[in-house]
């Protein structure tokens, strides 16, 4: 009985009233904070969090706030809503639509993968890179997803003390330290030689220091200190993202492996080749008119030519490829495709129709009914 009471309390309009007020407050705080923290960090701190600290105060974040609204709506639909009540049918339908929209959000949050696929003209790729997460990859150069000798360690497992061993080549590495962002600093001539490995590896010239995360998360430089054993050149190593030259490990079997930090790679079950990239601008201006990638999709037996452009993505095997951006270097153009896999994709489409239908019915039903008493409660 008690449980039912709690559940009924969750369905109350009053609870929604306060939850939505709080949601608006964190919406404002979180949006303003984007200016300083950057979009992603602010999103993590305020909207995707259980709670956040404002000074010494822990305050509920977006997850519990939206959670209360979602659960309350669910039980309201389950216990309280009578779809037979003609006066409230519009509201009931709207509530159902909102529930579907939120459900889609939950599914998307847990199931979706997104990242970018960067292919130079004439080249192919069978993976895409995560926007946010990185990985420590010890692999042969040019090998995209790894050979038996490789060790690919995702960011989540880069914890001090963790040990990873490669099956075939009988070497192992031990993570000593992981930095979310670092700065490089030249060492002064009077600094005492330090035995910390970071400094050894950087030729005693430079040292790395931990740094607060940047507002543009792509500006973060992640770094790992680790110890290698079982190779021909065992020792302490440090790597950081986009360093000039990543260290090489030589295995007992004589294979040369590169230790690098790079964006987490999600393998795709097929390959895409960029045949041609085309950019158009409006005549006599720099305003871009359209971007186009002419690609070939290679799957088991298929070799299909496809064009991806703005507002015309490629959908294949649950993945969607969007023309997102491009860059150019001396060798030619490089396309940047956004890749998304999302099981909750169709919820907004369905729920928007239901919500609008519901509000319209409600509008017409109050239009048709004569003046009703004010201050009506449930």
């Amino acid at each position: 009985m008690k449980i039912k009471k709690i559940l009924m309390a969750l369905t109350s309009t009053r609870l929604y009233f306060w939850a939505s007020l709080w949601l608006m407050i964190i919406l404002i705080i979180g949006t303003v904070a984007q200016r300083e923290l950057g979009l992603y960090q602010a999103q993590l701190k305020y909207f995707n969090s259980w709670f956040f600290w404002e000074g010494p105060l822990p305050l509920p974040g977006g997850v519990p706030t939206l959670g209360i609204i979602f659960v309350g709506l669910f039980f309201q639909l389950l216990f309280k809503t009578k779809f037979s009540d003609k006066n409230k049918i519009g509201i009931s339908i709207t509530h159902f639509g909102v529930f579907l929209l939120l459900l889609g959000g939950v599914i998307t949050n847990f199931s979706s993968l997104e990242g970018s696929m960067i292919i130079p003209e004439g080249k192919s790729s069978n993976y895409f890179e995560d926007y946010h997460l990185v990985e420590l990859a010890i692999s042969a150069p040019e090998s995209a997803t790894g050979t038996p000798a490789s060790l690919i360690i995702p960011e989540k497992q880069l914890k001090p003390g963790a040990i990873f061993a490669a099956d075939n080549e009988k070497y192992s590495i031990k993570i000593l330290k992981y930095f979310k962002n670092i700065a490089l600093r030249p060492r002064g001539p009077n600094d005492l030689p330090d035995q910390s490995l970071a400094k050894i590896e950087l030729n005693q010239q430079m040292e790395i220091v931990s740094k607060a995360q940047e507002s543009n998360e792509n500006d973060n430089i992640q770094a790992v200190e680790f110890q290698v054993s079982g190779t021909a050149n065992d020792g302490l190593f440090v790597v950081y993202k986009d360093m000039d030259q990543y260290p090489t490990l030589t295995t007992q079997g004589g294979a040369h492996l590169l230790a690098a930090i790079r964006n987490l790679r999600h393998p795709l079950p097929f390959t895409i080749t960029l045949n041609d990239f085309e950019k158009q601008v409006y005549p006599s201006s720099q305003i871009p008119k359209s971007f186009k990638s002419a690609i070939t999709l290679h799957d088991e037996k298929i070799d299909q030519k496809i064009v991806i452009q703005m507002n015309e993505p490629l959908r294949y095997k649950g993945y969607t490829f969007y023309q997102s951006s491009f860059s150019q270097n001396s060798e030619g153009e490089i396309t940047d495709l956004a890749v998304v896999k999302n099981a909750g994709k169709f919820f907004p489409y369905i729920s928007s129709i239901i919500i609008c239908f519901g509000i319209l019915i409600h509008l017409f039903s109050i239009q048709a009914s004569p003046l009703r008493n004010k201050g009506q409660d449930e």
Partner: protein
Amino acid sequence: MNKFLLLLLLSLLFQSPNLKANDSFDLKTISQIPILSNGRIKPLDSYARINLSRFHNKDSLAHMSAIEWLTEVIFDPSSANEKKIFRIVNLDVLEALEISPIAGNNYSATELINTLQKNSQLIEAISNTAPEVQTPAQKQILDLYSNVQLYIEISRSFSMIFKEFKIHDVALAKNLNLLPQQNISYLDILKEEDALKKVLNQFIKQGRLQNPTPADQPLLDILNYIDFIRRDDHSSELKIFPPEWLSPWKLHLSNPAADSRAESFRIWQALYEAYHTKDFNQFKALSLKLLQLSQQNSGTLASAALLKLETHFNRLNLFVNATACYVLSFLLFALSSLYYKNILSRLSTIALSLGAVIHLSGIVIRCLIMNRAPVSSLYESIIFVSLIAVLVSLFIEFKHKNGTGTFIGSTLGAILLFVSFGYEKDGDSMGMLVAVLDTNFWLATHVVTISIGYGCSLVASLLAHLYLFKKRFTQKSGHFTKSDEQKLLKNIHRTVLFSLFFTVLGTILGGIWADQSWGRFWGWDPKENGALFLCLWLLFILHGKLAGYFKTTSMAVATGLTSVVVILAWFGVNLLNVGLHSYGFTESIAQNIIVFSVVEFVILFFLLFSFHFSRKKVAN
């Protein structure tokens, strides 16, 4: 009586600037000549207005229309250079460039060209710094520099035909087959290229190139002049020669064969002559010929009808006239409470409707010219939202016929259109859209629906204000009966529901658009958060009422605050996007938003508390 007033009104509104008598140039035809600029083929008139606004912040000068100004710039730059058209208001800029401030804040090209040359080191230093760290004044200096550069480029478009050079040496003139002591142009000299070459060869052979005597000065002057004019050959701003849309210089350098482009170049030359000899009839005839030829050459690219429509649109100032109607409607409405209630309130509604028709036709014409949905920039969203607010108010007025709608519509229409004028001066208000925005379907659905949502929300908010004021100030005197109150409350409730419908639909459509284009339905982007904020706020009002937290006045106060929410979602979010690099312009927007919000809070909470206390008094 009504009809007479209406006619008077119409004639007042549509009095276009008097057509020019025969003692000046008829520029009507020339203003329709197509030009390609910023990705769009537009009439010369629009080009003139856009550039004049860019320099002057206004699309006309005191005694000159934009097209008159442009004609002078391209045909008679030495006069145009003296016109004070560059507007500099920031004292820091004047100080940095060591210009002494003058009344009116306008400076001529001649003044600025010298000043900028003197400060070239400063300008180079500024342009080498990162945009994020530049101060507003530094940015404005760079803007000024590029504006002056642009001006020079436009003014040198036809420099090859300027008749401004004289050969004083009779013998030399004779050798070159040219007339001495007469104004000739670069092209005139070039026509005698062979003769010039001959003279030059002799000059070089005799070894006078190394040791020129004073007698050789006339020849050297010619060479210098040729060199001086040739420096303009990069000028490519004035793209008026279809079908390739070449500028005069590019056309000249491409050596057009005896085709229609060469023909139109010759007409421009003749036009230049007619301009300087003040042959008004010839000028008119030539410009007509030129227009026909340009349209013929540009083929289907530039629709003659649309170009004509655009020049008319520029001249009619539809939005200014609509504003005038709204202001008039408001005044009539205010007067109607004192005199001739029936007639004046009827007239007030008529003025509002007339304004709406003018307003609507303005938006329709813009859609026709741009061939796209009405809303794609902040400026366009303001004129669209104000139209929606007026239409919703008219709907309310036609249903209830009690003046409420007229009051709301005229107030919102006039205020919003006034605000929009501030944005129009930003330059080309009909720019092309970047790739991702260039989809008519989504523009037509998402942006339009959300704008309708904004418009309805503003109406709801103003209705709530009206309710509060009426209740506070006229209920005791019996002017605001219980049934009036009920009616108004019902109206507010419905308008809130309408707003909710459109904002929710618009927000979800926006998400779907994002999903279609980038693969993410929701990204907590400031613009999305703004729209969500408005949705949540409207839901908050409705559920607050349902939960019993909001009774009549408190609900009206909450609905009244919707205006603040709309302004924050609509403008405030843009400020966030601008981020650190804010110009003085956006800083003033931020200030306006803060002032507006504070005023709204003060008014609404004052009303709320005054009700609270008066109720207590009654209880005692």
